[in-house]
């Protein structure tokens, strides 16, 4: 187990391993996305209240739920950077910040497109929208701090601290904002009963879409991290061999 853990610290090992994973991940993503999107866009019945706009949910919910996972991931990677000085963890932490910002931004955008027909407004100061916006600001802060510090090592540690402090703060922000103002519908409980408000024909395609978007997230994260590995290890022999090979 510890051998595995120490190997994880080696960027080269990770680069080679993730290279083997990527084709499988691509294939799985294409399958999940194709099934999920076709099902969601063509076969899910229109909602009795919201009509066809319910289909926006199949993009909005996966994107939003993954953006929520990014900050904890960054904080965990930051902790590993601080405690074990693992280079790879910092590369992941660096790469997840812009992806998290993008997913938060996409969640806000898809939410606005969904909100316009249903609530009649593109934006409202509702709890979830506001906390998503603040989370977006937190990601921007981490990215700004990273780009402001020149020393790579200092930037890694500083961003790790900010990520941990931010991750402690995210639930506080979430609850304080929720208590402040709530309009957003709560998450619907899933049910196996076909007559329930949220029957399997609604939530199964949603689960497939969540899996598909998660795979997309993992692939983007892997690609970014692999790129980062190549940039940081550009002076090492194995990267130069790799480049020479073409």
């Amino acid at each position, binding site marked *: 187990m510890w051998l595995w853990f120490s190997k994880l610290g080696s960027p080269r090992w990770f680069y080679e391993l993730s290279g083997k994973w990527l084709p499988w991940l691509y294939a799985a993503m294409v399958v999940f996305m194709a099934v999920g999107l076709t099902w969601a866009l063509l076969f899910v019945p229109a909602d009795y209240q919201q009509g066809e706009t319910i289909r926006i949910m199949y993009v909005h919910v996966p994107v939003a739920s993954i953006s929520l996972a990014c900050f904890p991931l960054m904080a965990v990677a930051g902790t590993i950077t601080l405690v074990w000085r693992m280079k790879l963890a910092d590369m992941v932490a660096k790469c997840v910040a812009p992806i998290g910002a993008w997913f938060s931004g996409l969640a806000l955008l898809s939410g606005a497109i969904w909100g316009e027909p249903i609530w009649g407004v593109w934006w409202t100061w509702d709890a979830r929208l506001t906390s998503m916006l*603040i989370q977006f*600001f937190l990601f*921007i802060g981490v990215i700004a701090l990273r780009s*402001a510090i020149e020393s790579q090592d200092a930037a890694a540690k*500083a961003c790790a*601290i900010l990520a*941990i402090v*931010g991750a402690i703060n995210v639930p506080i922000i979430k609850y*304080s*904002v929720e208590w402040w103002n709530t309009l957003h519908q709560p998450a619907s409980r899933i049910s196996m009963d076909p007559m329930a408000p949220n029957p399997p024909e609604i939530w199964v395609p949603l689960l497939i879409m969540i899996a598909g978007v998660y795979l997309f997230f993992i692939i983007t994260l892997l690609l970014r991290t692999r790129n980062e590995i190549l940039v940081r290890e550009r002076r090492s022999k194995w990267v130069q061999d790799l480049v020479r090979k073409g």
Partner: protein
Amino acid sequence: MTDKSPVSVADTQTLTSLGKAFRSTLSRDLLIAFKRRNDILNPVMFFLIVVSLFPLGVSPDPQQLSVIAAGVIWVSALLASMLSLDNLFRADYEDGSLEQLLLSPQPLYFMVLAKNISHWLVSGLPVVLLSPVLAYMLYLPSEAYGTLFISLLIGTPVLSLFGSIGVALTVGLGSRGLILAVIVLPLTTPVLIVGAKAVADVSFGLPVGTHFAILGAMLALALTIAPLASAAALKISVN
């Protein structure tokens, strides 16, 4: 008590000197602040000016102003605390005394806490004391004065503590200006929400005990975590 191993002697020495080191850091920072009076006056003046911009920009109408008064005062206090933060470690970083502080045997947590307390006494407390005057100028309902004062009294130390993390992270950077605000402002939103809501709620005649309890909890959390995070950040920035 016959055992006089060197370890226990060293322990008692550090223990006795911890309180002393805390007090001397605190009094040193206060002394420096009082020697440079502008450092005390600037945040208060900034607070006063920003608050007086709102009647000019929005409307002098008492009804409109009394609605936004709580929020305006809270946001202005937040900005004033943000702008004064730069003094927190900057001068010490430039003249090298921060490095001495990091090298000292005392736990950095208490040293950072002492600096935070002195910073709040110099820049946060005057803003709190001035707030009833500004509340009067913005036609805040008079029954909300006490709530505004107490919420600022509990809330502004939290702003200082969270802010000190941001300052500690950016103290070594050449161009800091806006990056500090970008990092710190999102972190302070819960304080702003609860503090401003307390004042708004009491204007509607609602009870505000919960708000104070939440603010107090935030202060307790900030007191526990923020000096630790700032200390770790200072170690990174000074290296």
